[in-house]
């Protein structure tokens, strides 16, 4: 599994990264949450509102800070 947080380094992006990391830890997964700050990469994924959460190359949430619980639910499904 590959988890990425897309954002240009604002507070909200940091908050989402932290929540994603919490969720990964709570689920006992051994994956690192990757931060994507490169605009070209963000653009390639078709994201216009940051922060966004990408799981296995698929955009699952954009423009909002998901809570750790919400990320967990998303990763489970």
């Amino acid at each position, binding site marked *: 599994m590959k988890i990425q947080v897309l*954002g*240009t380094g*604002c*507070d*909200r*992006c940091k908050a989402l990264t932290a929540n994603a990391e919490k969720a990964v830890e709570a689920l006992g997964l051994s994956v690192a949450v990757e931060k994507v700050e490169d*605009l*070209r990469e*963000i*653009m*390639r*994924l*078709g*994201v*216009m*509102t*940051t922060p966004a959460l990408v799981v296995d190359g*698929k*955009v699952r949430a*954009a*423009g*909002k*800070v998901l809570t750790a619980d919400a990320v967990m*639910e998303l990763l*489970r*499904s």
Partner: protein
Amino acid sequence: MKLPVLGESEEAPACCAQPAPRTTAEAAARGASRVKTAALLAGGLAVWAAAYALVHPLSELAAFRVLGLSPSSRLGQSVAFFLYDAPKVLLLLVLIVFGVGIVRSFFTAERTRALLAGRRESVGNVLAALLGVVTPFCSCSAVPLFLGFVEVGIPLGVTLSFLVAAPMVNEVALVLLLGLFGWKVAALYLVTGLAIAVAAGFVLGRMKLERYVEPWVYASMKRSEVHERERLGFQGRVEKGVEAVRDVVGKVWPWVLAGIAVGAGVHGYVPEGLLAGFMGKSAWWSVPAAVAIGVPMYSNAAGIIPVVEALLGKGAALGTVLAFMMSVIGLSLPEIVILRKVLRPPLIAAFVGIVALGILLVGWLFNAVL
């Protein structure tokens, strides 16, 4: 709470708003939680209305009875102003942000982009400015949004109209102005803010500044994947509203209190009419001064309004104050720094210069006609 159900993880076709519930039990549960949400909403509104009605009597009681301050003293005036305005503005803010959160759940950046794609310049500028008001926007998303717009061929000037209107015509500011000064001031703010966004985008578009966009923007352009759209029901929208309140009010309340504290100080300690001399109508240079001070400053709309209220009360002219407010919230250093990633300095300078000029003209116009 939605539990992961097998086969429910993929989105429904965009045409139907909600998938048909599979069983009657599921349908009943959905209906019950809908009723519960509606009841909570109604209860919340009732509590809000009661609290709002109590703010004035309670603030006077607290300032003059409990604290024993004299209504005619300066300290008494300031404290009463603070105790009245702080809860009032915070209550208004909660209600407005909730409402706006719901309205915005109907608009996404993707939908806005689809609406703008393929528009001609003039129509596009107007539409972009209007959509800038209702589309969810945060200055940290300015760059991805810019790229997303340019990518589908939306002209530079139209994109810039959107980027001017989105922060400058702020819905929180609009409703606070409406609540504190009445519809005329609010309408002036809305109309002139939109006019500046339309005109600035149009002029910038005419100037053919595309060469000052970082070259890689156009070079790496290709159609991006479209990601799935959320489906929201009544409940989803209410949740969006609550989320917006938590997000926005949770972040801006210290600013609001600081703004009200400044306003309270001005209210109690600055003599009536003192500001009329150098922020009044007769001082033509006060508008450029207000813009020059306002552009590098950054505060959010909710924090600047109480200051506006206090300044107006002491004889500052409306045009000057409005120009100050627009330049504080419409142009900000952090956003400019972010935009620098895709725009080269000449374009940034043109952008800031033309928007500032628009604000300046609006300030003078108001001071001249009102």
